[in-house]
Each structure stands twice: as structure tokens, then as C-alpha cells.
């Protein structure tokens, strides 16, 4: 199938995991809607044969809110990226978490604006090189999963494109949980990010993610023991699963 993704891109893996999770749910294509904003991640609905909205930059979640509130019986899944959701769409993101609207948002975080050629995003790590941070990023990045927890989402987890099985299970858990679910999927972008940051090919970026991901249980243990949390590592796993009052949940 012709597509826009570069060689070695991790987005295809995340789309695959998401579609496998949707399959596991047994949803009918006519009852499922995919909605996205703008960016590499957001081209995903164009490759899926269901009703889908490829919207404007950052606004996928409010479009999805309109669909879900007027047809709560439809299953609504949002594809977005770190630039789309955390920068221009940041306000919509936190308010959707607060409303706890029954959407599952899969955010492909590649640390960069890929579509436009590798500019720094709100998730670019400190010190990382991008076309707009040529001397190294000096802004601290957002922790999207923690942000979603603080803002009120019912289900939040983070995995990477290395953790295929875990990621698929996490998306499924998100789909099953009434209310707002965020699955943050860290993905390799060898073209826009890796090649400027000594991770030239997909393989080395995937290995980097594997080696820098710390399982949630171990991360919490380190926190509890007061051990220093390594700055270049990040926790993966389930951040929260709870039952706050939600909006747009279909009546049984």
C-alpha cells in the first residue's frame, strides 16, 4: 500500500498495535471512527477503511468530542502526535482529560515535528538536536502521561514501538475503559530525530528506547527507595486506571 511514512518509521507499528487492539474488541467497522489532527501520526486514518476525520492541526480531540457526544454509541479513536497534541492542541488535551470524555487517544511521540522536517517539539529531550534547536534543546519536555493523569484521564499508559505486545494490550485496556484514555507510544523517527542525535537508523533508535525504558514497578521502587531517577530514562507501563465520572459513555 502506498503511504507517506519514511523507511524505518515507528508509526506503522503503532497503527498495527492499535488495529489489533480494535480487532480484539470485536467492533464493527461501521461503528468505529478514527479521528486525527495534522502530522505524520495523523495520516493514519487515511489508511483505515472506516469513517474517519483528518482534521486541523491540534484539534482532533475537540472534533472527536463532537462526534462522541452526538453519537455515544460510536467507538472513537484519536491518532495524534507530540507536536499535534502537546503544543498546538495542549489546551484541548487537558480539557478532554478533565471532562474525561470517552475517547481513546493514541499519541505517537517521536520527540519531533516529523512532517515538517524535524523541528523541536514540546517533547524534544533536553540537549537534543533538531532543526530549531541546533545548539541542543534547552526547554524541559512535557511528560504527557503524567499530564494526562493530573488532568483527570481514566486510563493512561506509556510504551514504545519496541514493546509491541504491551502496547497492543495497553490500547485495548484504553478502549475497554470508559472515559478518557491516553496511550503514549514512543516511536523512532530516524529521519527527523535519530540522524541528528547519533541514532542514525531505526534499529539503533529502537534499541535506545528499549534500553532507556524502565518498567513502572521498578521506577516506583526506585522512587520509594529515594534512589536517583536517571534523567535520560523514562518509566513505561500503566500510569493510572480509575473510574472518575466520565462523559459520552454509551448507556448500557
Amino acid at each position, binding site marked *: 500500500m502506498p503511504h507517506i511514512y519514511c523507511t524505518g518509521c515507528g508509526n506503522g507499528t503503532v497503527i498495527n498495535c492499535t488495529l489489533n487492539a480494535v480487532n480484539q474488541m470485536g467492533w464493527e467497522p*461501521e461503528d468505529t*471512527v478514527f479521528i486525527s489532527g495534522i502530522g505524520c501520526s495523523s495520516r493514519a486514518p487515511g489508511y483505515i477503511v472506516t*469513517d474517519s476525520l483528518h482534521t486541523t492541526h491540534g484539534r482532533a480531540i*475537540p472534533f472527536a468530542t*463532537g462526534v462522541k457526544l452526538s453519537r455515544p454509541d460510536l467507538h472513537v479513536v484519536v491518532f495524534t502526535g507530540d507536536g499535534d497534541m502537546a503544543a498546538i492542541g495542549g489546551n484541548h488535551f487537558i480539557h478532554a482529560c478533565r471532562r474525561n470524555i470517552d475517547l481513546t487517544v493514541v499519541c505517537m511521540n517521536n520527540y519531533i515535528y516529523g512532517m515538517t522536517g524535524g523541528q523541536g517539539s514540546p517533547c524534544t529531550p533536553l540537549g537534543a538536536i533538531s532543526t530549531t534547536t541546533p545548539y541542543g534543546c534547552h526547554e524541559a519536555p512535557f511528560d504527557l502521561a503524567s499530564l494526562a493523569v493530573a488532568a483527570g484521564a481514566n486510563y493512561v499508559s506509556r510504551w514504545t514501538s519496541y514493546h509491541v505486545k504491551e502496547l497492543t494490550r495497553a490500547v485495548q485496556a484504553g478502549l475497554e475503559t470508559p472515559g478518557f484514555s491516553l496511550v503514549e507510544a514512543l516511536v523512532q523517527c530516524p529521519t527527523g530525530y535519530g540522524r541528528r542525535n547519533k541514532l542514525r537508523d531505526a534499529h539503533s533508535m529502537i534499541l535506545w528506547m528499549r534500553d532507556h525504558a524502565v518498567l513502572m514497578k521498578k521506577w516506583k521502587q526506585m522512587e520509594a527507595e529515594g534512589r536517583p531517577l536517571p534523567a535520560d530514562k523514562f518509566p513505561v507501563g500503566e500510569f493510572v486506571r480509575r473510574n472518575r465520572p466520565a462523559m459520552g459513555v454509551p448507556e448500557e
Partner: protein
Amino acid sequence: MTRLEFWQGNTACAEGALAAGCRFFGGYPITPSTEVAEHMARRLPKVGGVFVQMEDELASIASVIGASWTGKRSMTATSGPGFSLMMENLGYAIMTETPCVVVNVQRGGPSTGQPTRASQGDMMQCRFGSHGDIAVIAVSPGSVQEMYELTAKAFNLSDRYRVPTFVMTDEIIAHMRERIEVPDAVEIVERRPLEKGALPFAAGEDGVPGFPTFGQGYGVHVTGLTHDERGYPSSTDPEVHDRLVRRLVGKVEGARREMADYEVTNPDAEVVFVSYGSPGRSVKQAVRDMDDERVGSLRLRVVWPFPDFALQEFTNARVFLVPELNLGQIAREVASHTAVPVVPVPELGGELHTPARLAKTAEEYL
């Protein structure tokens, strides 16, 4: 049967929308439009509809567009600053041919300007505010009665032509209270569904494709990128873009006569007022006070697409006087369609032209 009410313009607007079958409102508070949202918040849940207060105007119009794809008649209401914020997503609605109604209760601008005073300063923004080549529909009510009727009509026009339709009103009409005859029912022209098996963005002669409502098995992909008749992106082929944009503009501009809705007084007049919205009230009074067949009036209820042919009804016209609550936005449009001299009669600051001032202006040209 009708019933009599004494309603505020904004109430009539919301009730007109409900009568037309509006069942989704996504909004954000802004003076002087807020009463529309407040009324919808009370009423929509009681008729099986959805009201949601979004985090800003960008989200409001986004939610309205999303809801429209599920087949619901959807609307929002705002004023100048919020209208500006909606421009990008309105372009998306134009590109994706999403029916939706946006009420703009105009107030004095630029910027925060005069939140509580009337203006007609957004007439060109509604026509040209979103980027790219576009065409839209705008109605402009001149009374509380017309707030009801034209809001209901806006839904029919939006569904018929699959283009955002604007109720371009102003603080005066929106906040004044007037007697209104509320009909038992209003005419409803639903959007035409897409025939099963047809390409979702292939249009017939009228340039308007059938609507593939979400959740009915169409499997339609909707994108703001330049797309082919299947709905899939094709953003580098000049022919595809040319064909799409000409159709989007042509389906609206080509239906000027079909959509035209205006009122003519004294068609043999030499001095002719052209107005829309609240200044039309002052014109009516001025023409009545002058009681001179040489003074006439053209009042537009549909402003966009502009009914250029209406000007030709005044075969003896020597001058068109265009009183507006702006520095001459529609006057410029009038001038582009006639060889007869056009004189803007601007009023800024929030007050309506007095009939006496308009009569005095008309006398200068008699």
C-alpha cells in the same frame, strides 16, 4: 397556528435553531452572543440534544463539525473575537463540505473593541476570513422575527449546499426585545444522503455531493487536504485542486438567484438605500418619513452570496446609499456590481443611524 411571544433576539435565534431541528450546540461564552448558548444549555437536553461548553472557540467549531458528521444539525454562536478564532476550522468545514451554522452577534472591533455595542464589522471576515479561495452563505436578520426565521433558514441552506452558513446579526437585534409570531413548525430541507456505492465527493450538476453520515457503513475518509472524489488526499496534482476549489466556490456562487432573499421598496426610485441587519430598520423609517417615490430601498436578508442582480431592479437609480455599522464593507461589494455611484454611509461606535440622518443624506442626492 402561531403563538405570540415577546422575545430577545438571541432567544429567537436559539428557538429558531431548535425548531429547525438543531440538536448539537458547542459554544464558548462571549458578549453579546452568550444568551444563545445559555438558552441552548437549558433547552437542548429537553429535546434530546447535546449542549457542550468547550474550552475555546476553536474547540467549539471543531465539536460542531464533528457532530455534523454524525448527521446532527449543529451550531455555535459567537462574536468577533471568537469568530476570528474559528476561521481555520471554518475553512476545514468549507473544504470538507460540512453543514454547520455559526451565529455571529457582531460587536465593535478590531480586537476586544466594544463588547456591548453593535457593529457590522465582520461582514468581510465572514466572506473572506478563512484562507484560500472560498465561498460561504450569510443571512442578516433585521428583527427578532427574522432572527427566528433566518436562523432556521440558515440550517436549510447549510444542509442544501453543504457549506458553513453564518447568521450575521449584531448586538442591537440580538439584545432587543420584540413581539414575535412563533409558528408551529418551520420548513425543514434535510441534507441529501449519499447514494450507496457513489463516490463520496463526486457531485452532480449542482456541485453538491450527497452526504455520507458517519456510522452508516459508508467508510468515508474526510480530510482538509486537497482530495479527489473518493475523499483521499491528492495534494500535489494541480488539476485535482483546481477542480475541487472551483466546485466548492461554484456551488455557492452559482446559486445566487436560488438563494436570493431581499425586500424592494419603490423600485422606480432614484436614490436607493442598500441595507441589511439593524440599519435596515432606520432605512425603513427614513423612507416612510420622506414619503417620496424617488427614494427607495433594497434590504438584503441573504448577504452572501451577494445578489448583484437585485441592484438592476432599480432601473432609475442615480445613487446607491449604503448605511452600515462599519466603514463601508458591503458598499464596496455593491460598487463592484454597478456603474451607478455608490456612497457608503458609515456609523461607528455602536449607535444605529437615526432615520433623520438617513433622510438628510438622501435629500442631498435628490
